[in-house]
């Protein structure tokens, strides 16, 4: 008796689950691309609106919600994500993520747009767009700023201890194939596109290459380089420079500043082979029900007084001319990365989304790090 009951319970469970799962499969995954922007009212009463902004912790002033309320009357809540990938997972999971404005790196904004999740920019609601440098309006992942507004930008290079490394590094090969006395004291970035960057530039390839032969060559170079590495580190590499565990690290320009803050011997340089141009951007989700407030928020962030906060506190470059003018000269002296001009930044190659081919970089990273 028990046996037959057990069997039929199992069968029921199995059948039921199958039905549920197929129903889910049928309903889910509707990639509708709607290109029609909503009709938005420039005179909407913002005090009735409220937005949720997802950003990296510490990337906006602590009192930004108060500033927003004062400036527009609308309220906002902020939520945080530690990496692009996490917020992407939430935004692409289907359903309403509850997020109105998200801060994501450029190539991810492109991917979100391709998936039909972003609201095109309503320029009339963002008059401060005029503050952007011209170079910042032509970034390859979103030329003409149709759906994303650059918030910060910068490049990647080598952050090193000038007192421990002599002569100063000038080439990506200084970390890919280092002087034996520095072996074991070097770190590289662990995030896919940037892990590949030194090899791409050292071999003269594009940061957006998807050519299999080129990728294979890059893999060989990177596997060789791994032998000299202390490790792959995205978040604590400047700490390693401070403690002296590492003497040269692949680093983003802004981050290197945190090292310089603690130890002035820590300096940043862009290798002669060139580097990338990355940008963190602001986007508005199509699913937002408070789009006017969302654009008002973006507009406020482009206000020179607000925007310059980023440079002064986070030590990142912002693509906002009047904002950069507000940054004190001493800061630019202490952190030479902040004195870089848009033209110089513009020499970097802009990272774009690689669509289906982006998995090639995941595989490359796995193959290299597991070797």
């Amino acid at each position: 008796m028990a046996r037959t009951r057990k069997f039929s319970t199992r069968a029921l469970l199995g059948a039921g689950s199958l039905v549920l799962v197929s129903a889910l499969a049928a309903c889910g995954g509707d990639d509708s691309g709607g290109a029609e922007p909503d009709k938005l009212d420039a005179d909407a009463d913002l005090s009735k609106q409220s937005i949720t902004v997802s950003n990296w912790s510490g990337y906006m002033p602590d009192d930004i919600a108060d500033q927003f309320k004062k400036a527009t009357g609308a309220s906002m809540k902020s939520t945080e994500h530690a990496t692009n990938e996490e917020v992407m997972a939430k935004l692409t999971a289907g359903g309403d993520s509850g997020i109105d404005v998200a801060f994501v790196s450029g190539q991810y904004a492109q991917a979100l747009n391709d998936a039909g999740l972003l609201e095109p920019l309503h320029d009339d609601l963002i008059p401060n767009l005029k503050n952007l440098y011209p170079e910042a309006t032509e970034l390859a992942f979103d030329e003409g700023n149709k759906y994303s507004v650059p918030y910060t930008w910068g490049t990647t290079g080598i952050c090193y201890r000038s007192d421990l490394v002599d002569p100063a590094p000038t080439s990506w090969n200084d970390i890919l194939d280092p002087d034996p006395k520095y072996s074991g004291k070097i770190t590289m970035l662990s995030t896919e596109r940037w892990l590949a960057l030194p090899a791409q530039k050292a071999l003269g390839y594009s940061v957006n290459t998807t050519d299999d032969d080129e990728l294979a060559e890059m893999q060989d170079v990177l596997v060789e380089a791994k032998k000299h590495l202390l490790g792959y580190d995205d978040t604590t590499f400047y700490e390693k420079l401070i403690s002296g565990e590492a003497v040269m690290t692949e680093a983003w320009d802004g981050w290197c500043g945190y090292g310089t803050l603690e130890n002035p011997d820590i300096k940043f340089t862009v290798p002669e082979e060139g580097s990338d141009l990355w940008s963190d951007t602001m986007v508005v989700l199509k699913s937002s029900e408070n789009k006017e407030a969302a654009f008002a928020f973006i507009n406020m962030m482009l206000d020179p007084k607000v925007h310059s906060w980023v440079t002064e506190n986070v030590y990142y470059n912002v693509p906002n001319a009047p904002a950069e003018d507000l940054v004190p000269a001493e800061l630019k002296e202490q952190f030479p990365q902040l004195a870089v001009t848009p033209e110089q930044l513009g020499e970097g190659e802009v990272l774009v989304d690689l669509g289906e081919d982006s998995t090639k970089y995941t595989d490359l990273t796995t193959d290299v790090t597991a070797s």
Partner: protein
Amino acid sequence: MSRAPATGARSRRAAGAFFLGPGLIFTIVFVVVPVLLVLSYTVFDRGRFGGIQYTFNLDNFSRAFEPTFRKVLVSSLGIAAAATVIALAIGYPVAYAIAKLPERWRSLVLVLVVIPFWTNFLIRTYAWMVLLNTQGVLNDVLVKLGLVDERLDLLYTKGAVIVGLVYVYLPLMILPIYASVARLDNELPEASADLGASKFTTFRRVTLPLSLPGVITGCIFVFVPSLGNFVVPELLGGGKTVMVGNLVRDQFLKARDWPFGATLALIMVVLLVALFVIQSLVSRRYAVDSRR
């Protein structure tokens, strides 16, 4: 299996439903269905921008057996196994010791063992980085004591990952073993001693077998999450030790290839379920049954 009570089969069915019902329904709705959902992705493809493209195929499975992934799987199993063995070596004596403490101290010490795990995971791992790095505390001590000539490269190695995993999952080993061993009502060990058995024989023949279910549970509790952990290999391993957890995370989040991530997860699941079934059979064999 317990004999049917004198109160009859209907009452027994009611009892069964009472105990099993709520838990099973909850589990089916919030565990089985979601997991089947994810595992169903394995036979589909990654959509163009991430997400799922519902074209049925089995490519993911052949891809999962490529050399790199195989290598990672094997290496992960090794590391997880090492962590489990070490956790057992530490955890068993400790759990046994706690169980032997006077009753009023037991809960206190048990909670003391667990309290470190109420601090944040990231900070605890950072603490290990501080302790183990070449300029760090442990090296300082070793050098000052003259035990080593040169600073050791302790961090960013497989060893560091294992230590980190043991540290993170140790209470998961201690608690089940303690639960198994506590209040074994010294009657049985005492009886054994009375009958002339040495302390060691008592332990080997009485205590150890009785604690086996707890031991196996503890081992599963350490082994499984060790396999899937991705923070410890990243921070303490310097990203140079890739484990299955990293792979699954990378596929789900970075490549946004949920189907392939689900495939790797499925392989892990099959392995672990197999281990679990073995465990289930073993523990049943050791179960005390009045009818045997």
